[in-house]
């Protein structure tokens, strides 16, 4: 219709104008980059971590793992249809949760340690009480119209989910209902991370964009571009002013919130594998990124250099995590093993 076309043209013009305005504002604060600022930082040298434990127990590909706040327990999810809760100090399995749907893609531990949540191709996020005599299903959060790619507890009463239906959602666990739906991505949401103060969260999606959201207002505050393919992993830098993303375009990037743009890219000509997962050491200096090439590569977050590698898995590294006390790194793989390094 002619009227619609005219309206589209006006909107497109406004869109282009706003984009130009935003780019100009970003350029205005771009007076240097991370590498130059990092000149004064001490060198980290080669980071050589040893394999301390290989946790055997899953019978199929591991898709996700998450540390408990006590830095000792850890939960892992495999498409063998089970969640396993481990005591990482002894290597013993504490709890096994059988899943209704084996196609799990994400798992999370509640800060209290009482609950775990998981979900995947069943489009649901199921919450379990693991402190009961035998694991009990507490809630089945069923409203997403696409797969569940990531879930993170705020507390025993609230949980965030990211989905292939392009939305993220904040749920009330007491009612089992959605509190806020975050819409703005135009591709499957693959990953989310809560800010240290829990007022905001970031999401990475298949539209190659990362977005910062106000958790309570439900609004998208900032959008970060730069990647040229799906963003699979996203984590906050420990002070909450920056975040790191990992993508199928084989690179990781650090974005700064206050200057609203990318400040460094972590990539290497010899690395031709997509990034599946990432986690940071406690000071934020080291980035542990899991790749499709079966390794977890270690990057110096400030200088942008590769400083080490965790080799040992026989298949893609699908998940990584550093516990709250920073005492090690856990890697999980499609080879069905979890490995602890420090």
């Amino acid at each position, binding site marked *: 219709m002619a009227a619609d076309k005219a309206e589209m043209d006006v909107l497109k013009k406004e869109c282009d104008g706003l984009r130009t305005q935003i780019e100009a504002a970003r350029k205005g604060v771009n007076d240097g980059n991370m590498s130059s600022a990092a000149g004064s930082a*001490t060198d980290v040298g080669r980071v050589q971590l040893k394999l301390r434990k290989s946790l055997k127990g899953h019978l199929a590909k591991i898709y996700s793992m998450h540390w408990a706040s006590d830095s000792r327990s850890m939960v892992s999810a495999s498409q063998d249809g089970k969640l396993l809760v481990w005591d990482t100090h002894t290597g013993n399995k504490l709890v096994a949760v059988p899943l209704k749907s084996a196609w799990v893609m994400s798992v999370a531990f509640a800060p209290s340690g009482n609950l775990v949540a998981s979900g995947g191709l069943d489009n649901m996020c199921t919450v379990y009480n693991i402190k009961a005599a035998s694991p009990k299903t507490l809630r089945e959060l069923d409203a997403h119209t696409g797969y569940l790619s990531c879930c993170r507890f705020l507390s025993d009463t609230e949980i965030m989910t990211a989905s292939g239906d392009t939305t993220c959602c904040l749920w009330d666990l007491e009612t089992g209902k959605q509190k806020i739906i975050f819409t703005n991505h135009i591709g499957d949401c693959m990953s989310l991370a809560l800010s240290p103060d829990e007022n905001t969260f970031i999401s990475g999606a298949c539209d190659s964009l990362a977005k910062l959201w106000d958790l309570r207002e439900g609004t998208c505050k900032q959008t970060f571009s730069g990647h040229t393919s799906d963003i699979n992993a996203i984590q906050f830098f420990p002070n909450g002013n920056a975040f790191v993303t990992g993508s199928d375009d084989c690179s990781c990037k650090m974005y700064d919130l206050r200057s609203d743009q990318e400040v460094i890219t972590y990539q290497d000509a010899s690395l031709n594998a997509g990034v599946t997962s990432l986690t940071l050491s406690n000071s934020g200096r080291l980035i542990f990124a899991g790749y499709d090439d079966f390794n977890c590569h270690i990057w110096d977050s*400030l200088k942008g250099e590769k400083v080490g590698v965790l080799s040992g898995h026989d298949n893609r590294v699908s998940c990584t995590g550093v516990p709250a006390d920073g005492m090690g790194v856990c890697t999980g793989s499609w080879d069905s093993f979890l490995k602890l390094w420090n």
Partner: protein
Amino acid sequence: MSGNSSNSVIQAQKLVDQLRVEACMERIKQISLTAGDLVRFCQDHRRSDPLLTGIAASSNPFKDKKTCVLL
């Protein structure tokens, strides 16, 4: 048929609304300053990062403890 074009118009309007929100953001800090803050944070927390400082074998929670046998 106005169906499809109206949808595109709605999508375009949503995009413009979002861009307006993002354009209003105050980008007050220069990258050199924000990057400096990140560097300072890493340096300040260096000593409390076990993966940087290393962990003594006796206090390593993941290391398998070898048992001593008195013969």
